[in-house]
């Protein structure tokens, strides 16, 4: 079993460091699970993740991942133009302001 390669950026990069995890961290799973379930299994707070890449494409949190996939968690705080261009918003509630 090859496991899932998990990376994390920004403050989550340092969370991995604090926990003594390598980057990428290899996570083995028994059965396919969603991005959100993977996050939960790794005990990463939901509010600390704005978007997730699966195999270099931003996917919804309901997207199923399996052994051999490459996942990266991105925290809030990426400049708007890139959140927009990379498709972060397709997975977000359409909140346009206060």
């Amino acid at each position: 079993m090859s496991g899932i390669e998990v990376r994390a950026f920004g403050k989550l990069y340092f969370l991995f460091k604090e926990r003594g995890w390598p980057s990428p961290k290899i996570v083995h799973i028994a059965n396919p699970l969603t991005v959100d379930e993977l996050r939960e299994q790794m005990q990463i707070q939901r509010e600390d993740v704005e978007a997730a890449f699966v195999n270099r494409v931003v996917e919804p949190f309901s997207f199923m991942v399996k052994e051999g996939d490459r996942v990266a968690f991105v925290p809030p705080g990426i400049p708007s133009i890139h959140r927009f261009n990379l498709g972060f918003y397709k997975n977000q509630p359409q909140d346009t302001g206060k």
Partner: protein
Amino acid sequence: MKKLVRVNLTTKKVTVEPAPEEYQGKGGRWLTSLVVAEEVPAGCHPLGPNNKVIFAPGIVTGSSAPSSGRISVGAKSPLTGGIKESNAGTPFSQKLARMGYQALIVEGIIEDGSRWLLKLDINGGELVPADSLKWMGTYDCADSLRETYGDKATFMLIGPAGEAKMTMAGIAFNDPEGRPARYSGRGGLGAVLGSKGLKAIILDDTGSPGVSPVDQEIFKKGQKKLVDAIKTHPITMAGGTLNAYGTAALINVLNEAGGLPTNNFRSGAFEFADKIGGEAIAEAVEKRGGAGMMGHGCHPGCIIRCSNVYPKEDGSEHVSCIEYESTWSLGANCGIDNLDHIAEMIRICNDLGIDTIEAGVMLGVAMEAGLAEFGDSEAAIKLLQEIGQRTPLGHILGQGAQLTGEAYGVTRIPTVKRQGMPAYEPRAVKGIGVTYITSPMGADHTAGYTVAPEIVKVGGDVDPLSGKDKVALSRAFQETTAFIDASGYCLFIAFPILDIASGFEGAVETVNGMVGANYSLDDVNTIGREILLTEKEFNTRAGITSAADRPPEFMRYEKLPPHNQVFDITDEELDEFWK
């Protein structure tokens, strides 16, 4: 009534005149592009007597508006052959505004090879001989200026590359600590000043009248909204992404998206991206201590503070700053994964007074040509030193990526309108590719860096790998960006306004309060479009038509890994931009 100051290097005269009525209420890019369009013959040689360099603070620059210390510089570009606007964050902008100057116009030319320094005060100023600064690197030159004019000297200068009229030369301004490290880097504007023999400008702001909003109440109301947005958004707040990791926090994200150009745009992913990103910079700063710091501000009053000071192993200062574009261009794009080597390359670029984006793109092309191996930082440093030594090879490299590629028969030259592409791969992030291609400035990521809140409503299904709707979106981005560039605000204020609409309202209200206008949010795009059309019209007169709005040919047929994409937005779709 605000003033213009004209400095003529042919006659050595400095004259102050009232700003024309049509310039009232304008600033930044709005004003520099307007003056270039009105006063510079589009067909002139960019390094000849008829080109002019225009400096203009933004509309709210010099006031208490947050993060608003931008200086816009405009001219006909010797790199692109078209109009150019390049702006920087620096105390220079704030002082120039407070001195009552709406713009500084540098004209004429020196033909005897002499160098001059402009001493500018509120009554005008004088040109003084500056041959003692000839060929001096920017760091030594800044030291010399501080020695003569005091530790608090506020200045602009050019490096040896500008003096040698190399088209990758930028213009350096001081940061708050006096480093010559804040750049209007793009488009070869330093070469235009070099052709005029103007090595430096020193500001003496004694007796400055300051900057006062016409309507203080509206200004303050808008200021509060904007400050609240900046201070509460995770990208711009204290301890947020930009403050904690700098702009280079994007390295790992763009790499993960397969959009980080690597080895001269041969791949969109760099195996060692994590070694050159913002997280690695922050770790080095933390570990080495000493002079190193994250959260450095480029001008007083910036509340984002995305800059940094990168230390050497012993904690002494190496360079300020390592930002996203520089660590990409001199790192991933050249296959180089050592931050200390990248820091040294940035320091050399700064000392020579050259644009780090163009330098890195040029090096990637030079590596493609076989002048060095990808990943060989020692060879890359030697190539940069050729520029400083002004060898025949250095003169070729100093003209940028396009000319270097042409000189060596390279077909893979990642430029648009002869300007090197920044750090986002057009084949993997097609929206920004459209901006590179259609901007009157040549390939420029900052030309379309602002997303207005209403765009989110139509942006829910944005796919970076698809060309769908990208032309219309880029047009909207470029219009809003042009307005921000006119305002004097740092483009990064735009990051929170996508989510916090009141911040956008606040920015517009500060502009309204400053000049007594009544712009609506819709007017932002109208004004932005007016600026873009002024620039486009200049380019057309200069012979740069929509036929130049094209990607490099190799991006049409060469599939970019890891997504194996080509740039597939058609010429006909691109031509829709200006219709």
